[in-house]
């Protein structure tokens, strides 16, 4: 079946601009996660959705970052007033949230470059 998809695959923007990154999870997965990965490092957690609500947003670095999942499926990560330090690969993952050992399925990521 279809895996997690993310669009766009690459996004280049200028400092100060607004960007939106989209994630389509696996059908039926009610848990959705956003991570950010800088070059040479492991992914870092940003936010977790259970259904439509953000169950844990403790990883969002500041209030320029916001994410929504209005219908409990597709999610959009929004970054306002982008800064060069926001450049990274943004990964989305989904899972069945029955236990902590559930496998998270990752998308290919969106590579964001802020000039």
């Amino acid at each position, binding site marked *: 079946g279809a895996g*997690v998809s993310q669009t766009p695959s690459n996004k280049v923007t200028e400092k100060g601009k607004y960007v939106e990154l989209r994630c389509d999870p696996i059908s039926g997965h009610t*848990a959705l*996660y956003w*991570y950010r990965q800088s070059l*040479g*490092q*492991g*992914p*870092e*957690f940003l936010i*977790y959705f*259970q259904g439509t609500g953000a*169950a*844990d947003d403790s*990883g969002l670095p500041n209030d320029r970052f916001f994410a929504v999942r209005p219908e409990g499926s597709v999610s959009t990560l929004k970054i306002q007033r982008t800064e060069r330090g926001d450049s990274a690969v943004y*990964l*989305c*993952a989904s899972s069945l*949230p*029955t*236990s*902590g*050992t*559930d*496998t*998270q*399925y*990752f*998308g*290919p*990521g969106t590579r964001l470059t802020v000039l």
Partner: protein
Amino acid sequence: LAKTTQPISMDSYEGQEVNITCSHNNIATNDYITWYQQFPSQGPRFIIQGYKTKVTNEVASLFIPADRKSSTLSLPRVSLSDTAVYYCLVVGLNNAGNMLTFGGGTRLMVKP
């Protein structure tokens, strides 16, 4: 959750068995050990998960000693396509919906 420590990098040759050891001294009773693999320009992919002793699947084996303070991922007869970053993680059984906490991973380079 327990912090994990693993080698930064490893080199191997095609056809060899590769063993990557991870330490997790503070692992809790309800924690499981999970390994993910990540190829360049792709998201991480689940490889294997275990609680104790030995787990084997079509990709790898996972060895966990009785004290569970470490674990070893074993890749039999690696090929060039096994070149990737391998992450060892500890996940809590009862923490449904908790984020994965990745360390730096082990960069495995398989040479011809």
